[in-house]
Structure formats: C-alpha cells, structure tokens
C-alpha cells in the first residue's frame, strides 16, 4: 500500500487487531416469530467491539467476528457519484483528487472554520475503531476504521444554542465522477444527524482503514461513520459540515422517504419493501440475523428515549 500520501495514518492496527479476532462462533438464535412461525437464523455479530477511550482496543474479549478483508472493503462499495456498480467503484474512483482538501465547518457555530486535512490529522488523535457496517441493501462488513470522534471537532467550533442538526455535504466533482451526470440522482450527496447523534462518542470522522489512508472509493480523505445506522448515512468525501436549526434534507430521504427514513437506525423490526432484514456478511455464506441498532443498542438507545422507532425509522 502507498504510505507516501501526504497524510498517512500513524497507527498500525495490524499489531492490535488479530488477537481480538477469534473464530466466528455462530450462535443459532430462535427468532422471527412471524405469523406464528419460528425461523432460524445465525447471528452475524453478537459482540463486535465497542470502542474504549484508548486507541484501537475493543474492551470485550469475546469478539465473535472476523474482520472483513481489505480487498472486500475496498473492492465492494456504494459510491454512486462514481458508478452504481459496487465492484466498479474502486476503478472509477482512482483518479479522484483528494489532496489538497479542506472541510468547511459553518452554520450555527461560534467559530466557523475551513479545516485542511493536514490540520485535522494534526489536531485530532487518530484511533482505531472496529465497527460493523450494515448496508440497507442487506449486506454487512466488519471494518477497522481509523478516525476520531466527530464531537471533538464540533466542540472546537462551538455550536450555538440554535444548532439542532448537523448537515453533511459530499464532494461533487462531475469531471472526476462519471456517475454524477446521469440525472437520476440529485447530487450533491447530503446527509444529516441530530446534534446529539453527531455528538455521540460512537460517531466518528474516519480518515483511514486497516491502518492506511482511506482509498478514494471508501470516501477519501474524510468520511462519516455512524455504526448503528444504515451505511448510506455514513457520507463519504465530506467537504462541508453545517450546524443547522431544522432537520436537513438528505439524499435518500428526499428520493424515497417511504423507504429511507431520516434516522435510518438499523432496526430489524422495521420491514423494508425491498431488502431482507436478515443480512449477508460479506465473505461468509448464508444469511444471519440483523441486530437492533446494529448491535450498539446499549450505547445509543438513550438518544431515542420516548421516540417511536417504527414511525421514526
């Protein structure tokens, strides 16, 4: 891999991760009592690590998942600005220019600022976070990200009292993105979070994976990762982060609100008209159970107290 990029990530998780990854122990769970029938499904990932304060360490010794291979993570991606063919994105994205790069952070903040990537990498300690990634299409991966909690950056710009939501905008460079001109999608890609979701410690801005800088197809040079939400919330190649007072429009929610809610929390109890709520783990065979909040319910459920998560899907 190319270590000579201008902002290589100073951590080598290859030394850390393997000892935490044990053979997958499939647990067959009685589940899905629909119309009085009990279906049997294996659980994909009962225990993928939740991060601790220290870099790269998962607290739980009982990890039950294998990391998805680097080849699969970088060879199978959704990045519609380049192409809708998941296995073609890596090729189409190779010439995407990601340096120099800066991220404008503005809106309802005391100190709006354009951060260069160099500043971001220098100011925020990069740590490893091993997260499950669940795509709404019904596949999933386990990815060792490198990044830092978004709240650190937001605290530095000081959101004002009016700031209630965070709007993210992805780069749109039509002459470098051959899928961006089809007219079938209202680019630029926009995503949003409620401010408290954005401030949650699990929410990170990722700058690398497997100890390397992010390749362009995975959202170089900087992307969002919100592990308890469907993958489309984790917007790639961010150029702007705006603090706003109202729930912002987001790409998929604009196109098909009946299918892609603003919250888009992973929730096997909310049916999707297209995709199964039993998932395929990339690199493994068969389908397995999708976990509520993608397995992070314990950490994030307090964000949604008193909310009906079926209506607010």
């Amino acid at each position, binding site marked *: 891999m190319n270590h000579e990029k201008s902002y290589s990530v100073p951590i080598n998780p290859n030394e850390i991760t393997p000892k935490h990854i044990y053979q997958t122990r499939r647990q067959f769970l009685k589940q899905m009592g629909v*119309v009085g029938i009990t279906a049997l499904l294996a659980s994909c990932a009962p225990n993928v690590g939740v991060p601790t304060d220290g870099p790269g360490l998962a607290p739980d010794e009982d990890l039950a998942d294998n990391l998805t291979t680097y080849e*699969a993570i970088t060879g199978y991606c959704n990045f519609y600005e380049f192409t809708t063919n998941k296995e073609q994105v890596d090729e189409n994205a190779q010439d995407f220019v990601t340096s120099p790069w800066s991220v404008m952070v503005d809106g309802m903040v005391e100190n709006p600022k354009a951060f260069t990537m160099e500043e971001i990498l220098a100011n925020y300690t990069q740590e490893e976070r091993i997260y499950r990634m669940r795509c709404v299409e019904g596949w999933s991966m386990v990815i060792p990200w490198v990044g830092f909690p978004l709240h650190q950056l937001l605290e530095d710009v000081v959101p004002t009292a009016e700031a209630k939501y965070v709007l993210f905008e992805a780069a749109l460079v039509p002459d470098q993105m051959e899928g961006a001109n089809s007219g079938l999608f209202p680019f630029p890609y926009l995503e949003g979070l409620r401010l408290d979701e954005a401030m949650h410690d699990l929410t990170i801005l990722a700058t690398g994976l497997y100890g390397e800088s992010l390749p362009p197809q995975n959202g170089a040079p900087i992307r969002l990762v919100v592990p308890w939400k469907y993958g489309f919330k984790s917007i790639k190649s961010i150029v702007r982060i705006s603090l706003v007072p109202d729930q912002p429009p987001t790409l998929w929610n604009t196109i098909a609100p009946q299918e892609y809610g603003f919250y888009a929390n992973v929730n096997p109890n909310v*049916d999707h008209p297209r995709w199964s709520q039993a998932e*395929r783990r990339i690199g493994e065979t068969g389908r397995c159970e999708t976990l509520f909040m993608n397995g992070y319910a314990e950490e994030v459920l307090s964000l949604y107290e008193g909310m009906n998560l079926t209506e607010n899907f």
Partner: protein
Amino acid sequence: MESRKPRKINSKWGLIAANFLGLLPLGVLVWAFWRNQLGFNPVETALQRTGQIAVVFLLISLACTPIRRLFKWPILIKLRKIFGLYAALYAFTHFAVFAIWDYGLNLPLLWMEIQEKPFIFLGLTALIILLVLAATSFRYWQKKLGKGWRTLHRLVYVAAILILVHYFLAVKGDIFSLQGDYGAPLVAAIILVLLFLLRFPFIYRPL
C-alpha cells in the same frame, strides 16, 4: 420447392445458434462460480445476472414476432419458443438462487419475504406464468388445447409486465419520480413498450 432446401439449412443453423446463445450465459455463470469469480457478494451477483439474462431472453423472444413480420423470416417462429424457454429457465434459476443459495431453503423465512415484499410476490407470479407456458409450449399441448393455447400463451404479456415492475421495484430509488438506479430497467421498459407497439397492425403495416 427449390427454396425449401436452403431454408431448412438456415433453420437448422438458426436453432443451433439459438441454443448456443441460450446456454452460453449459464455456462459463463457456472464457470465464474467454479473459479470463484462472482465477486465479493456472489449471491447478489448471481441473482442480478440470472434476472437480467431472463429479461434479455424474454425480450428477444417477444421481438421474434414483429421481426418475423417485418423481415419475413419464418424461422423466427421456432426461435420465439426456444428463447421463451430460455427465459423461463433463467427465471427459474433466478428463483433457485434466491430460495436455495440465498435463503438456504429456510421456508418460514422465504414465506415471510414473499408476503412482505411485493416485488418478490410479483416475480414469483411471473415465474409461475413462465413455467406454465414453458410446460405447455410443446406440440402435444398446442394440439390438445386448440384455440385456448393461443389465449393461454398471451399471458406472456402479463408476465413481461410483472417482470418489469419486479425489476423496477428491485432497484434503489423511487419509481414515481424516477430518481434512483433505473438505467437498466428503463432500457428494458422502453424496448418492451416498443415491442408491444409493433404488435398493433396500424403500426407495423406501414413499416
């Protein structure tokens, strides 16, 4: 009399070519599976590819009648049946990948998906139609059913529409605003509409 001989040769090679064309994608698919070349999500690849191939053969089969009329190629009436049979074969393979490979024949789960997801229900309905048509496509049934055979086989138009709706619903986006991943199904829909139009005498006569 003299024209008969060349036409027969023509028809023989036509049949060979059609069968070759029909089996080729299956061969490529099995080969790719064998060599582990179906990508990172082989089930998804196999599902998409068998579905797309089924659509292509169905469209080719539906194109036979208008083309035969326009260019007066009688052999196409035989090819129509062969391509139709391959459409049914790939549609069935598509279903088999879904039920066996993807869901491991987990019947309760399959039943739930069929009930919950309209596009699966529509696809299954279309498959049943295609299988009935395939089973009754042989001369024995053609004779036995008499006039009813023609009526029965007009169901292929229903199947084609169901399959197109199934295709549109299976890709990401919103079908009403046409915002989404609609490139391929849109092309298929345009061809299908064209093939339907070419069946109206007031359209094909002037051609």
